[in-house]
């Protein structure tokens, strides 16, 4: 036998998150965003959160629900252009926003997931994003020091999962999910399909079970997951 059954109720899973925690949330636009875990976090109302996500979703869904509910103190993100609420809150200084180049955000998260402390890159070196960063040199080339970005919790959306926490993603719903699943102290995954241990082939698993702490089965998908009309 391979290990623990990590299936859990959504209430119990999300109630582990405390005020002031840092929470990474998977997804790029709609695909891969764990809307149901986010809604439970809205319902429970933890506040003062630092949220790490690629984007701030669109108004009325996902991260925006946390923003409008006043639960987010700081957002670490690569793009908020599709969410005027986030842009406004940033301009009004009720929300602190830290921008990262998208691939650097991905790497900072991965770096934490890899148990490393930081990495050296020339990306962004001529931009405002370099302003408050330490530099160092390798072979005479000046490089920025980018720090690993960990979190207390990662909220992940999987297409399929088994009770041990092996996860599979589909299409472009993969994006930041496998990176965040490795990077946080506690990883909570919602899944559209829950299969028995042994039903996923060892080669096809995207996130190995040892990285996952809780698996929440979604018996029904809310409208958030559907095709966006715009």
């Amino acid at each position, binding site marked *: 036998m391979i290990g623990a059954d990590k299936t859990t109720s959504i209430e119990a899973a999300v109630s582990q998150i405390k005020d002031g925690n840092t929470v990474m949330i998977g997804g790029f636009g*709609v695909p891969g965003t764990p809307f149901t875990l986010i809604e439970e976090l809205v319902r429970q109302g933890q506040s003062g959160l630092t949220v790490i996500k690629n984007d701030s979703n669109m108004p009325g869904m996902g991260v925006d629900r946390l923003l409008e509910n006043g639960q987010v103190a700081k957002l670490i993100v*690569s793009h908020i*252009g599709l969410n005027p609420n986030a842009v406004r809150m940033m301009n009004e200084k009720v929300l602190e926003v830290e921008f990262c180049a*998208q*691939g650097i955000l991905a790497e900072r998260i991965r770096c934490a997931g890899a148990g490393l402390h930081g990495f050296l890159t*020339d990306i962004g070196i001529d*931009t405002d994003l370099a302003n408050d960063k330490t530099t160092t040199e390798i072979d005479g080339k000046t490089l920025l020091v980018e720090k690993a970005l960990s979190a207390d919790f990662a909220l992940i959306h999987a297409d399929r999962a088994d009770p041990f926490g092996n996860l599979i993603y*589909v299409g*472009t719903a993969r994006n*930041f999910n496998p990176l965040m699943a490795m990077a946080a102290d506690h990883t909570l995954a919602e899944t559209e399909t829950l299969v028995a241990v042994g039903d996923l082939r060892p080669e096809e698993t995207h996130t190995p079970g040892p990285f996952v702490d809780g698996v929440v089965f979604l018996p029904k998908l809310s409208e958030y997951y559907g095709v966006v009309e715009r």
Partner: protein
Amino acid sequence: MIKRATDEIRPGMIVNLGIGLPTRVLDHLDANLAVCLHSENGIAGVGPSLSNNDADRNLIDAGGTYVSTLPGTSFFDSAVSFSLVRRGRLDLTVLGAFQVAANGDLANWKIPELFTPGPGGAIELAQKARRVVVLTTHQDKRGRSKIVKECSLPLTAAGCVDRIYTDMAVLDVTKKGIVLREIAEGLSVDEVVAATDATLIVPDTGVVTF
């Protein structure tokens, strides 16, 4: 100008088309051209866009358009996606712009106090694609030239742009400055020069009309 920019895309290339105007290059591309479109949210081999009725809710490009797969498409995570960009596997990117400067500097992610969408993938695309092409209107909505002597807006990347396609002209960024290569039908060289903040080099060999 969108149609004009399709010439950039040649068989065998790996290409990333930025959000907005650049994505529309697709509509003018020969469907049989052997080109691999990369989207930074984790696809190599982006297929034709789909209507909402035909859409797969889990399959979008980085601009949020519902897309399809092709024979040979692969999906990957965001770290692999930008590894492909930074490792120099991207032959070409076509990006939008707020401003492009005479030295090839690009600004397209931040208008302080006004509109800051964030850099998204643009910094890495601009810094690391082997060829960086900008596709943009020649002037902004208030009639100000986007082709400038120096960027007043925060940079996306320094000295990165190789060529600019606008509704008025095709321009090459060279060590000596911006060279006017082509002008849109119905415009004169003087009109394009007058509409441009940056000093344009007009070659003795003349300027083609597109």
